[in-house]
């Protein structure tokens, strides 16, 4: 009927008008049960294709008035087919039904929305805000430690770095709002410099990820994403208060979000202030020394941080752009009885106050300005991500003479200022029914300057440029093949450095002269490396299977190439090797997931081979009475994986168990047959959660507990010591009550970590090297009020 009338109208006009009679279509796709918009659903009408945007909308422009076959496919949903007539007169919302037989990928958060990651052949998992809330620790990485395959290297109570399957530092990439987070990742003695309260959701990829992220993404990626958009013309906010008994922490974080029609803004401010943390011992035995602790306080481990972030964005049908400014400022002390590994005595009265930050300490400021823009075209989505980061870190310690170095005049031992400029351009092509193609270019420029009296890494400039192509090919609705190729080119220019004091140099004629020794020289190095990935993903009714083979790489760091000096913190002499090649890593990742009624099991094995792992080798030689450590490359073979099981006998009760294991072995070089530093031991976590019905004026109450059992780690490299196994019990309860508002309940959580106040050692803690145990019992209370 309609069609005919259009024909008639067309006949009334001329022939050219007929061809100009084109229409636009805008339709929203939502979940049938929850009515929430579905992002990234694949749409086709006849031979035109598109995907839904962040609002769940899709558009077709310039289409002729006629009858079309509309198909909507979305992972985790039943395929939807219908015929529509253009122009469209009916309601422009289509609700599609979830396919309940498809498994929930996310075990930890229990989220049902994100099924997109099932199609990926790499093992990915989505971590949502409720998981972060329930498991909140002092820092983001400590919060994520409960996830199988993820651990952290910590120093003190407030700082830790991500580790995925035993690899950390520059072998894990952290991405925030599309831009690679660039701090001094190589160093052991500080944390991530990200406000964990500002994280709404993140995605963890375990496995070779250089294809999309370039250098460094060997072990995996932690991608922190900006949260979901608010509905039009709405406002929301929250205030979060935290208190912890072990380190007398108090924290406050407040955030607001506002959206108008197209414009929106977000802002957050976070402050945490904590004292020295307590360990369940009053004496620490390190080598032949005994440190007596005052009231179990690990002296001078107090700290504080002030974080602010704000963003402003614009969203319309075809264009979205957000500019985000974040600043993280932190200061924290280091355990005072040892400066790194060197035992120290001091005239400072550390025990007078458990909240002051004396020497040694570090302070850091990380500023980021990022813009993300997205243009949705009929067959393409163009993404542009631009970022500037300034990381300023200083380490202060009591000036002490060493060797030929006289007493320095200030406390500033090291200063690093790193500026990073990044740009990513990506084109997601969805013009084809069976192919999802992505093309992209990434470029990053770093400029690192140094200061202070201690020399560790030279000043350098580094440029990396890479391009990639990726395709996901849908063979059937349940069988996907994906693959891609990438090439990166990089340059590292190191600058010369001379010591600020004289040392005696023996000349060839036997005479001795006093000279300022050169610690690094000017070099211009170039690197080129390719990355590749190929994988399959097969989804069945009650099970899914993934297999991926990937090649990743890492360009050597300036410290690895050109270090030449005493690391006072580690009390050793470190020497770089200028002829290091980019690290090449080959990895096979698998995933097997099966559900039988209310029982779900997932296995994620991996096998990894490094052609030339860069390793700081402790040599059997001295340099000016300090042990000489030299960067070398060796073949490394690793395997391991994670096994998780989830049993949900009733909606109110769930039990889960997970196991993680990594084996690493050097196949060549001086440390042949040895493992790698900070190898995580075999570890299991058993968790239980029980939801209680409403009681008195408390609603949605749940109690949860987890028990971590870790095996002894005997697989060590110098200077590590074997670490005994342990079990650690945590307990918590969360509830909510409508105290201030009927719409937004007050959420209260109380948890107890290390319930039994056990003295345990974590093999991947920096302080483990000086025999410092993990924190004792800690009671934390957090309160969250949204408005």
């Amino acid at each position: 009927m309609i069609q005919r009338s259009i024909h008639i109208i067309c006949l009334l006009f001329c022939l050219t008008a007929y061809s100009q009679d084109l229409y636009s279509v805008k339709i929203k796709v939502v979940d049938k049960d929850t009515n929430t918009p579905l992002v990234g659903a694949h749409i086709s009408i006849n031979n035109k294709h598109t995907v839904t945007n962040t609002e769940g909308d899709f558009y077709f422009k310039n289409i002729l008035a006629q009858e079309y076959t509309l198909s909507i496919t979305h992972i985790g949903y039943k395929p939807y087919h219908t015929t529509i007539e253009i122009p469209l007169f009916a309601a422009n919302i289509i609700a599609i039904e979830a396919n309940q037989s498809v498994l929930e990928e996310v075990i930890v958060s229990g989220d049902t929305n994100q099924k997109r990651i099932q199609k990926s052949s790499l093992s990915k998992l989505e971590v949502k805000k409720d998981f972060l809330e329930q498991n909140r620790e002092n820092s983001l990485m400590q919060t994520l430690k409960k996830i199988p395959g993820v651990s952290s290297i910590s120093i003190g109570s407030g700082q830790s770095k991500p580790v995925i399957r035993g690899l950390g530092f520059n072998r894990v990439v952290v991405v925030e709002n599309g831009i690679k987070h660039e701090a001094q990742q190589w160093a052991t003695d500080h944390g991530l410099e990200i406000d964990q309260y500002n994280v709404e959701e993140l995605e963890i990829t375990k496995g070779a990820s250089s294809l999309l992220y370039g250098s460094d993404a060997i072990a995996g990626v932690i991608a922190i994403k900006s949260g979901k958009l608010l509905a039009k013309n709405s406002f929301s906010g929250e205030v979060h208060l935290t208190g912890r008994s072990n380190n007398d922490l108090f924290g406050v974080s407040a955030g607001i979000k506002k959206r108008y029609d197209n414009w929106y803004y977000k802002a957050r401010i976070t402050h945490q202030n904590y004292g020295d943390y307590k360990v369940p011992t009053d004496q620490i035995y390190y080598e032949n020394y005994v440190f007596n602790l005052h009231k179990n306080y690990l002296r001078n481990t107090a700290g504080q941080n002030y974080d602010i972030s704000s963003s402003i964005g614009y969203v319309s049908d075809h264009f979205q752009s957000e500019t985000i400014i974040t600043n993280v400022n932190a200061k924290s002390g280091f355990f005072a009885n040892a400066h790194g590994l060197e035992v120290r005595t001091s005239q400072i009265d550390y025990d007078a106050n458990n909240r002051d930050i004396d020497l040694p300490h570090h302070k850091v400021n990380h500023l980021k300005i990022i813009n993300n823009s997205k243009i949705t075209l009929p067959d393409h989505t163009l993404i542009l991500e631009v970022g500037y980061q300034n990381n300023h870190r200083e380490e202060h310690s009591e000036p002490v003479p060493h060797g030929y170095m006289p007493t320095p005049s200030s406390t500033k031992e090291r200063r690093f200022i790193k500026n990073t400029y990044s740009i990513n351009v990506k084109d997601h092509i969805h013009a084809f029914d069976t192919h999802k193609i992505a093309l992209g270019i990434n470029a990053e420029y770093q400029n690192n300057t140094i200061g202070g009296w201690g020399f560790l890494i030279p000043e350098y400039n580094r440029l990396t440029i890479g391009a990639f192509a990726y395709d996901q090919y849908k063979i059937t609705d349940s069988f996907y093949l994906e693959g891609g190729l990438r090439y990166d080119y990089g340059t590292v220019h190191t600058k010369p450095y001379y010591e600020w004091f004289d040392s005696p140099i023996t000349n060839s004629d036997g005479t001795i002269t006093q000279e300022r020794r050169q610690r690094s020289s000017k070099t211009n190095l170039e690197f080129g490396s390719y990355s590749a990935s190929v994988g399959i993903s097969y989804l069945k009714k009650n099970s899914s299977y993934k297999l991926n083979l990937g090649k990743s790489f890492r360009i050597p760091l300036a410290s690895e190439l050109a270090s030449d000096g005493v690391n006072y913190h580690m009390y050793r002499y470190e020497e770089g090797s200028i002829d290091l090649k980019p690290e090449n890593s080959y990895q096979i990742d698998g995933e097997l997931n099966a559900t039988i009624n209310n029982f779900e099991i997932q296995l994620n094995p991996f096998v990894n081979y490094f052609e030339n792992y860069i390793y700081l080798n402790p040599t059997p030689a001295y340099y000016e009475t300090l042990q000489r450590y030299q960067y070398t490359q060796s073949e490394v073979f690793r395997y391991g994986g994670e096994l998780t099981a989830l049993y949900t006998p009733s909606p109110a009760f769930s039990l889960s168990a997970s196991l993680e294991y990594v084996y690493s072995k050097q196949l060549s070089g001086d440390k042949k047959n040895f493992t790698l530093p900070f190898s995580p031991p075999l570890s299991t976590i058993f968790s239980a959660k029980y939801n209680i019905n409403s009681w008195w004026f408390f609603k949605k109450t749940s109690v949860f507990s987890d028990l971590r059992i870790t095996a002894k780690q005997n697989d060590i490299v110098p200077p590590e010591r074997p670490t005994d196994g342990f079990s650690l019990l945590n307990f918590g309860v969360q509830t909510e009550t409508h105290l201030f508002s009927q719409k937004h309940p007050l959420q209260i959580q109380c948890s107890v970590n290390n319930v039994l106040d056990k003295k345990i050692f974590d093999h991947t803690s920096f302080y483990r090297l000086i025999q410092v145990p993990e924190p004792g019992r800690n009671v934390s209370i957090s309160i969250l009020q949204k408005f």
Partner: protein
Amino acid sequence: MILGNICSCSSDDEETDTEKPTITVNYAEGFPKSCTVLQKGNPYIIKVKAADNVALASYAIDIHHNFDHHTHDDQGAQCTLDPIKTPKSPMIFMENYPIKGEVKQYEITQSITIPEGIDAGDYHCQISVIDVTGWQSRTSIDIKIQ
């Protein structure tokens, strides 16, 4: 299954050395002992015993002042320290020596003459040893130079 097979293929009997060497001055001829007073201009022989389960590789002797009381002895002794003072011309002795012949036992016997014209006061004598694998042991002894 696949994982199990890889395990069995890659596990071999090549054991790694995970033991540190030992180092001691606690025997009759061991020198210097805690709180020993050395005289400027005099020669001394440092005697320290080192041992390792595989083989020793090198040792180092580092004598530096402790006028600022920056660290302390690990021999369990509490020596009386002079008041904190600013160094003018402190003694610096830093020497490394290889231990040849892949021996498991070695007695460090090192002659040293305390120079004239250096600052008198509290010093540390730190002796370190590394085995062929790269494991290090150290000992630090409080001494005085007069």
